């Protein structure tokens, strides 16, 4: 799909900003065949997420989640990290840009620096630690944070006195005071902007005493206070006197939804959730019961599982939610803070807290604005990158893409999705240059240890204080040394950090270790990382075993440290016992079918299919109904007012015209077999199940969409004046005269959402109601319009609509879940609506001519389809992604991806972004013609096989066969590695590699101190 037809396109891409979005975009592109230059102004990658303590709504440790990504990006052969640098200019055009960089001096050569820390030891200068939000100190020679990538020191020249101590102390000779800024030029085919965002500086709010009182902190400062690696080592204390606070207040919308102090009318989208999270985590940290109160305007918990999270905070943790904007914070002599506020009841209240957290919103930095100007990128009125809803990751300059919070305020999963989408966008026109500039790695030959006795090295992780703060890690380490075959044991602050990885490699070589045990978190998240590390120095990755002493030990037994220590020893002993029996396994590579199956022909499915085709691969687009377009066919406009129908029609036309897209209408998925890289799917006609077709594909994207709830409430369907959003959009399209003639129109929010039956927020309804109300107002300016709501959730820049609606005189009446509006429709024609007004505190009555129900968004019912793919759905019926934070587009099963409303209710721009993201994720697989697959497979010992056919009958995938050879044959590439045949084989002729009977029994034996008998 080359637009220019030039052959001088460049197969490399530049990503500016190395936060979580920049990292994701880089990894996607580097794994899909492009060389990536990842530029960041700071000394390390990681961005804002590295500073966070925990992440909502799973309360996962942010560092644990991001750390493997930091390591992966740090060690990636095709990602060139360029820290301390700024993009000065971008010349040329899409496909062939020249990027000019200013590389600021680091004063310590990161190639020579071993991060030994001697320079810091001798540095006499003390400076404030910005990473800890100035709550702590550091030296002039410093490293940003312990897991920093690249892992090397830097000198803060602003405070350095040039004493020369560090230069003398550095044995590596890495110090260079004379280091100067350099300028460099790089040719790239496309650019992804992922600079992220700053937080609003609340010192402008003198009424909140932020600059006057240390016990008033920002939310980011509070993250550092909660963090185990933060200034107070995770102990909840207030800065003023390091006393343990008994009462903490969170004040929402600081620098957001505020044109008085901040000039930021938008909502920052994330603050409600992070305040809920902080209040719950603070309560967990507190040794004495903590009183936590959140002062808010609207509680915006519009994401997946967010509403339940809020419920848990209120009902489970006892967090107080107070709907009020605090007007004054008055410091008291004892360090306390007196809050004055007016709740909805109208009285003036005062309450004293020990600490106040200001939920600061996002604000585009001066540097980002200047960069945008240098690059010729248009910003919108709020200083975010100007994008269209229909091309949500494209900037105003061709070939330059955007993701994350530079696009608009958003949370991590949304940023990660957009990052993948931007990666797909950036590479779409470069596909002929795929693999042209990438490097391949020469791994050392694997060493053969089969003749050697096991020599086991054990590495015990403290995980900051996640493990070491509960279990006695030194005792576990010393215990490990006493176990059979163990020749080395040590403990690490973070075993997964890049420096420890390097150290592990060094120790393995030094001591001749041939089996490695890591006792840390879960193999689910970290096993591949450690396996890769040991492979880099010639150990087969299967000479590795993990003991899960965090997720399944210290996190469970926090209150009984002795038991946690004992259990950690048991788990290490069991892991060591298995490690002694581990064998090298050969790496199997499989050919990949370079095609993608897309299920669902709505906007997400169409975008996904077109994305795959434009990347140069075949897409099979399967749609159950007889037309493409899905839900979007019933929608008039995006939230920014862009018409939807012409866009969908164009998508359909493009898809039909594209020769790489095979469209199957009125078709369902019948049967799916295979694994990543090689799926075989039977499609069957929706009308005739006997009419089938078999297709092969390397990956699949499920975009099965959703639908509008048909309300049982409020006489829907019984009175023509009562419509849903889709009915209203249709009426608007058809110029229904009744709309214009309406004198009173009422929107009722949360119909079928946030109820007992359906606990989630449908995310799009507030916006759609307000947008529709504005359209009605335009049709008939005299119309009285009421929106009856529970919380207005016009998140992000969508707040503009809310503001405009209020300016236009649209009235908002809030109701409680327990006291919803009532409609009386006795005579069948005249409607009488009664609702208790939240300001007047008394019921008001009206006779609307039009009632619009903001009905919930439901996922389409696809139980059988999901079973075919063996993908999970949550209790609401939405598909469950691999990880709520960092893998929002992947399923846990490799090679399968999701997009659109099947994942969660979302707006069109968000569906488009997720669909493009799914394309990017699928490219990691189908852009290569081979893929390395798991080596954990079953193998038959012909001598023991009696050809009894038990395995043939047992295998869920019909893999084993007994042929002329007279014994069972299991094709390695077909075996899924479940081990069913192994445990059923009566002759014990089959073994499952890495899970042999001996290895499994060794664990049991070890638990009971029985010496391995095999």
């Amino acid at each position, binding site marked *: 799909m080359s637009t220019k037809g030039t052959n001088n396109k460049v197969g490399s891409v530049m990503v500016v900003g190395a936060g979580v979005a920049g990292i994701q975009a880089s990894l996607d592109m580097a794994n899909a065949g492009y060389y990536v230059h990842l530029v960041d102004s700071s000394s390390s990658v990681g961005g804002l997420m590295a500073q966070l303590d925990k992440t909502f709504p*799973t309360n996962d440790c942010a560092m644990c989640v991001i750390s493997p990504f930091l390591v992966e990006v740090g060690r990636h052969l095709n990602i060139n990290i360029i820290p301390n640098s700024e993009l000065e200019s971008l010349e040329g055009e899409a496909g062939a840009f020249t990027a000019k960089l200013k590389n600021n001096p680091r004063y310590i050569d990161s190639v020579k620096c071993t991060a030994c820390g001697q320079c810091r030891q001798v540095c006499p200068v003390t400076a404030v630690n910005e990473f800890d939000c100035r709550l702590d100190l550091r030296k002039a020679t410093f490293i940003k944070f312990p897991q920093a990538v690249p892992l090397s020191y830097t000198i803060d020249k602003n405070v350095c006195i040039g004493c020369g101590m560090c230069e003398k102390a550095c044995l590596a000779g890495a110090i260079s005071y004379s280091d100067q800024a350099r300028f460099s030029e790089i040719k790239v085919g496309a650019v992804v902007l992922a600079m992220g965002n700053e937080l609003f500086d609340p010192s402008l709010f003198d009424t909140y005493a932020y600059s006057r009182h240390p016990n008033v902190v920002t939310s980011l400062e509070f993250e550092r206070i909660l963090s185990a690696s933060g200034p107070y080592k995770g102990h909840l204390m207030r800065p003023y006197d390091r006393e343990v606070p008994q009462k903490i207040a969170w004040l929402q919308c600081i620098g957001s939804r505020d044109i008085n102090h901040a000039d930021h009318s938008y909502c920052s989208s994330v603050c409600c959730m992070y305040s809920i999270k902080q209040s719950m985590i603070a309560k967990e940290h507190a040794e004495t019961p903590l009183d936590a109160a959140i002062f808010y305007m609207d509680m915006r918990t519009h994401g997946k599982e967010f509403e339940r999270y809020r419920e848990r905070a209120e009902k489970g943790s006892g967090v107080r939610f107070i709907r009020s904007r605090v007007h004054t914070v008055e410091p008291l002599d004892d360090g306390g803070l007196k809050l004055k506020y007016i709740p909805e009841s109208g009285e003036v209240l005062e309450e004293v807290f020990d600490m106040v957290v200001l939920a600061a919103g996002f604000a585009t930095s001066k540097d980002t604005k200047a960069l945008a100007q240098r690059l010729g990128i248009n910003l919108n009125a709020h200083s975010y990158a100007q994008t269209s809803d229909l091309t949500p990751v494209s900037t105003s300059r061709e070939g330059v893409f955007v993701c994350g919070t530079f696009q608009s305020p958003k949370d991590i999963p949304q940023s990660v999705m957009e990052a993948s989408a931007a990666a797909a966008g950036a590479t779409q026109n470069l596909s002929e240059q795929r693999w042209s500039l990438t490097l391949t790695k020469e791994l050392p030959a694997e060493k053969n240890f089969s003749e050697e006795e096991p020599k086991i090295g054990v590495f015990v992780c403290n995980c900051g204080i996640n493990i070491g703060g509960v279990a006695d890690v030194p005792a576990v380490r010393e215990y490990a040394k006493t176990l059979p075959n163990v020749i080395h044991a040590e403990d690490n602050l973070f075993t997964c950090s890049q420096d420890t990885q390097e150290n592990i490699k060094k120790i393995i070589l030094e001591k001749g270790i041939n089996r490695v045990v890591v006792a840390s978190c879960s193999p689910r998240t970290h096993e591949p990382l450690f396996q890769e590390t040991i492979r880099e120095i010639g150990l087969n990755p299967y000479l590795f075993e993990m003991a899960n002493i965090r997720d399944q030990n210290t996190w469970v*037994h926090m209150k009984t440290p002795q038991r946690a220590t004992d259990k950690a020893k048991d788990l290490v002993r069991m892991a060591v016992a298995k490690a002694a029996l581990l064998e090298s396994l050969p790496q199997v590579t499989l050919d990949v079918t370079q095609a993608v199956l897309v299920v669902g022909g709505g906007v997400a499915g169409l975008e996904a299919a077109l994305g795959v085709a434009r990347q140069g691969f075949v897409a099979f687009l399967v749609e159950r109904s007889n037309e493409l377009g899905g839900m979007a066919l019933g929608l008039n406009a995006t939230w920014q007012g862009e018409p939807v129908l012409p866009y969908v029609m164009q998508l359909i036309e493009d898809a039909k015209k594209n020769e790489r897209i095979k469209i199957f209408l009125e078709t369902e998925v019948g049967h799916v077999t295979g694994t990543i890289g090689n799926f075989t799917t039977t499609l069957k006609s929706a009308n005739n199940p006997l009419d089938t077709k078999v297709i092969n594909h390397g990956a699949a994207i499920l975009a099965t969409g959703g639908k509008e709830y048909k309300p049982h409430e409020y006489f829907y369907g019984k009175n023509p004046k009562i419509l849903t959003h889709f009915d209203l959009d249709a009426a608007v399209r058809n110029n229904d005269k009744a709309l214009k003639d309406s004198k009173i129109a009422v929107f009722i929010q949360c119909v079928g959402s946030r109820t007992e039956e359906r606990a989630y927020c449908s995310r799009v309804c507030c916006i759609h109601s307000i947008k529709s109300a504005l359209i009605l107002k335009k049709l008939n300016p005299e119309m009285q319009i009421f929106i009856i709501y529970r919380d207005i959730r016009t998140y992000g820049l969508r707040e503009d609509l809310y503001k405009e609606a209020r300016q236009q005189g649209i009235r908002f009446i809030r109701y409680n879940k327990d006291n919803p509006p009532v409609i009386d429709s006795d005579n069948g024609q005249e409607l009488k609506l009664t609702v208790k007004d939240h300001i007047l505190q008394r019921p008001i009555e009206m006779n609307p001519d039009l009632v619009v129900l903001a009905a919930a968004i439901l996922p389409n019912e696809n139980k059988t389809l999901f079973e075919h793919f063996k993908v999970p759905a949550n209790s609401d019926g939405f598909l469950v992604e691999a990880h709520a934070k960092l893998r929002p587009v992947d399923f846990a099963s490799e090679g399968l991806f999701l997009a659109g409303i099947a994942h969660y209710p979302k707006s069109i721009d968000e569906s488009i972004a997720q669909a493009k993201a799914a394309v990017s994720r699928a490219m990691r697989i189908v852009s290569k013609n081979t893929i390395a697959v798991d080596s954990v497979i079953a193998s038959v010992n012909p001598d023991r096989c009696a050809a009894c056919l038990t395995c043939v009958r047992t295998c869920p995938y019909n893999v084993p066969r007994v042929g002329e050879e007279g014994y069972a044959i299991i094709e390695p590439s077909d075996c899924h590695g479940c081990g069913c045949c192994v445990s059923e084989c009566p002759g014990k002729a089959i073994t499952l590699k890495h899970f042999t009977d001996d290895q499994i029994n060794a664990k049991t034996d070890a638990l009971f101190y029985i010496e391995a008998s095999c």
Partner: protein
Amino acid sequence: MNHDFEPQIIAFCCKYCAYAAADLAGSMRLNYPSNIKIIQVPCTGRVDIIHLLRAIEDGADGVYVAGCMEGDCHFVCGNIKTRKKVEYVKKTLSELGIEPERVEMFNLSSAMGPRFAEIANQMGERIRNLGPSPLNIKQAA
């Protein structure tokens, strides 16, 4: 019943559901007895009658297998095959005069952290009520 009795229990958990649910229970900071030790298997289908009997023989007071929900097995039906093996082991144990309740099969999804903790607590309580495995009593005597 002896209140000091601390049963030793082994849980064979499949990688895709039960093991992930155990991790989730941890990240939700849900408590369950520390004397339950998890052994990860790729699928409960890999769990052999031998593994269950070996655990009892070695000295476990209880053993259970936890896999995906029936119908949701990552490997189609490994959990259903192993349910039968668990039933078989129960029968064998009762023939040997060992309480069959010491062995059990559970099904849960990876999103069911609380259920994992509930099962662990429930199994811990059940074995505590049963007392030490007859094999352990014999050994002690």
